[in-house]
């Protein structure tokens, strides 16, 4: 089991999340795909932490998890506020700043 296995797994998860975050139109699904991207990042960080025998990668992953928790809470709050105001959750129809 080399480090390449874990890095390629993290790249695959990151790309799947990137594809979903760019292409889906439901804002909740976009946030879910961003979470998948962060999972890929965390796998890469922990893999480097294991193979380089340094704990710094694990600490970074811990902070990534903290920031992701804050991000998903605020993001879902924005989605719910948008749904209350406009009855939409599609990102393409959330364009009231343009009007």
């Amino acid at each position, binding site marked *: 089991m080399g480090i390449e296995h874990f890095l390629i797994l993290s790249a695959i998860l990151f790309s799947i999340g990137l594809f979903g975050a*760019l*292409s889906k139109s439901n804002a909740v699904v976009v946030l879910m795909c961003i979470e998948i991207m962060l999972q890929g990042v965390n796998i890469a960080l922990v893999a480097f932490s294991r193979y380089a025998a340094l704990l710094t990668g694990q600490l970074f992953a811990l902070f990534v998890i903290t920031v992701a928790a804050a991000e998903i*809470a605020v993001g879902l709050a924005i989605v719910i506020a948008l749904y209350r105001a406009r009855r939409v959750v599609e990102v393409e129809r959330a364009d009231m700043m343009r009007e």
Partner: protein
Amino acid sequence: MGEQVAFWLLSLIAVGSALGVIFLKNIFRAALLLLLVFFCVAGIFILLGADFLAGVQVLIYVGAVGILILMAIMLTREGERGSPFGRFKIPSALISIALLGMLIWAFIKTGWTFPSPPLPEPTTLKVGLSLFSLERGWVLPFEIASLLLLAAIIGTITLIRGKV
């Protein structure tokens, strides 16, 4: 041997359910598959000898983030409209596949010269010690993270509080 079986099983389930999150029509099932992705990543963390992070992953992602997403789906009543693709399906697929190809090419072409990793041992004590050690510690980022969480709590309450 058992390690490799566990790795391939976990990664196949993780990649498959991550694809399911994107391609399933039912958004509620997509959220449940996302929880499966989180669980598999926790298993990968255990394979990498990061037991504390695996626990944190299950607690925060599967527990808190998963429940948040499920509640947001129920509050926005988007279950019947499904999760359609937007206008940029083909370009974003091209971009993602190009990025994936470049990343995999770079990972394979790089000659990693790490020595074979030592046997995994409990990391909770070491993580705590290096997080809070006086020199080269991470106390200031830790405090900033707690400030960020406080700001997130207040921001969330302000955003979704009704007009009082």
